[in-house]
């Protein structure tokens, strides 16, 4: 934190850059990440501890508060969702930019970035207040009531058919996702066919005069990924059986699950 020492005002505690009051308020926040709806919510809560209008908030201090919070959460081995860490990385970057003298080469100044963050916080808080005002309005069925005994007569016997947009969209979604479970179509990319294996084996057989593990015949790029390796192994084995049947090679396996080895059958 020593690199953050930056004179901001008389009320600042030189060792942290925060006022004592702010630090105490921030520390009073229980490190409970589950209590927040994402990093922006956490930032807004931290910003409130600065006890100033959001437009006049010190984004530098806010960045410090946030990074402190993340540090403490880590110290307590609290698992943090990735977006909290993304925000932490961004705020660390912003903090360093704010501390450096402005770089005329940069397209977007650190001040602009900070101002936008303050705007986002202000907007989130404004929407929360608006939501609270909305919910405080007179609501139908709670404060205001409809006719308790509607009198519309239902004499004419006409059937109307109905469906909601939600029904429609869900029906479509159901149809389209069913495709995900359609009969399995072979993924050719991950499959080494027996034809390919045979083509690969035939020219190699002439030089295989010593007993050789068939795994040595797996083509390049088919040894790493387990699925590809399995496919290539199976095809290569099938190809050797085919070649053995044609009298081109001998196969041997010395013990159960032991390596399968092949050798070209001497011509004639």
């Amino acid at each position: 934190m020593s690199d953050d020492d930056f004179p901001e005002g008389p009320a600042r505690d030189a060792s942290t850059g925060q006022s004592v009051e702010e630090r105490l308020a921030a520390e009073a926040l229980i490190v409970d990440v589950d209590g927040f709806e994402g990093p922006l919510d956490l930032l807004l809560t931290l910003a409130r501890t600065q006890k100033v209008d959001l437009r006049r908030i010190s984004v530098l201090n806010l960045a410090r508060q946030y990074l402190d919070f993340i540090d403490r959460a880590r110290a307590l081995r609290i698992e943090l969702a990735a977006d909290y860490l993304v925000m932490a990385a961004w705020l660390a970057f912003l903090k360093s930019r704010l501390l450096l003298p402005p770089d005329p080469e940069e397209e977007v100044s650190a001040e602009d970035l900070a101002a936008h963050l303050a705007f986002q916080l202000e907007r989130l808080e404004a929407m929360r207040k608006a939501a609270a005002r909305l919910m405080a309005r007179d609501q139908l069925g709670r404060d205001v009531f409809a006719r308790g005994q509607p009198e519309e007569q239902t004499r004419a016997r006409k059937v109307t058919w109905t469906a909601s947009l939600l029904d429609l969209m869900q029906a479509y979604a159901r149809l389209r996702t069913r495709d995900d479970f359609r009969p399995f179509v072979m993924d050719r990319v991950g499959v080494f066919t027996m034809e390919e294996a045979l083509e690969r084996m035939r020219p190699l057989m002439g030089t295989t005069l010593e007993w050789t593990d068939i795994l040595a015949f797996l083509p390049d790029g088919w040894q790493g990924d387990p699925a590809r390796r399995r496919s290539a192994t199976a095809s290569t084995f099938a190809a050797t059986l085919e070649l053995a049947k044609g009298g081109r090679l001998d196969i041997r396996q010395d013990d159960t699950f032991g390596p399968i080895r092949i050798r070209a059958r001497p011509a004639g």
Partner: protein
Amino acid sequence: MNESRDPSLFEAPPPGEQERMVEAILFASATPMTVAELHARLPHGCDAPTALRQLASRYDGRGVRLVRSGDAWAFRTASDLSYLMTRETVETRKLSRAAIETLAIVAYHEPVTRAEIEEIRGVSVSKGTVEHLMELGWIKLGKRKMTPGRPVTFVVTRAFLDHFGLESARDLPGLKELRAAGLLESTPGPAAPADSDDAEQEDLFTPSPPEE
């Protein structure tokens, strides 16, 4: 909110206010109410019979009247206007699963041929389903497709857009958007998976079953 109770805790609200109260209570009540029931709901000291009398004369000759049946009171449509109350919509039934799926495919893929609908649904489309949707005025015939056989196509109608509150069929969210909005993983609606399978089986094996 409760300024009417403010002046003095035990003083009854002024007569005009009592009348408003009785008016609101009777309006919102699902059943006719007796004087005793009204007194139980009104602030202490109210005089329900007087309020009812004033209210009855206020509504005299209006489109709605305050009427007494037995010892209970309720608002009722003036009898000379009862002919206005008949509503033509009685029974609303949910579309069958086959119909809603067919409708969804037409909406998302219009203009679409019958063969294309069947390909997407994976089952044949019964004649009844298409006819039903056309009778509802939600789909209609579009231009013939310029492919071999020049098959007829189906498109959705203005009435369809009105019913579903859409400006155009293009406003329907795509698959990705459905997934993003969490509409895709959600449990299938009222049509339970079990009976839906049955419905599809029917579609497969019987030529054109009545679908509902």
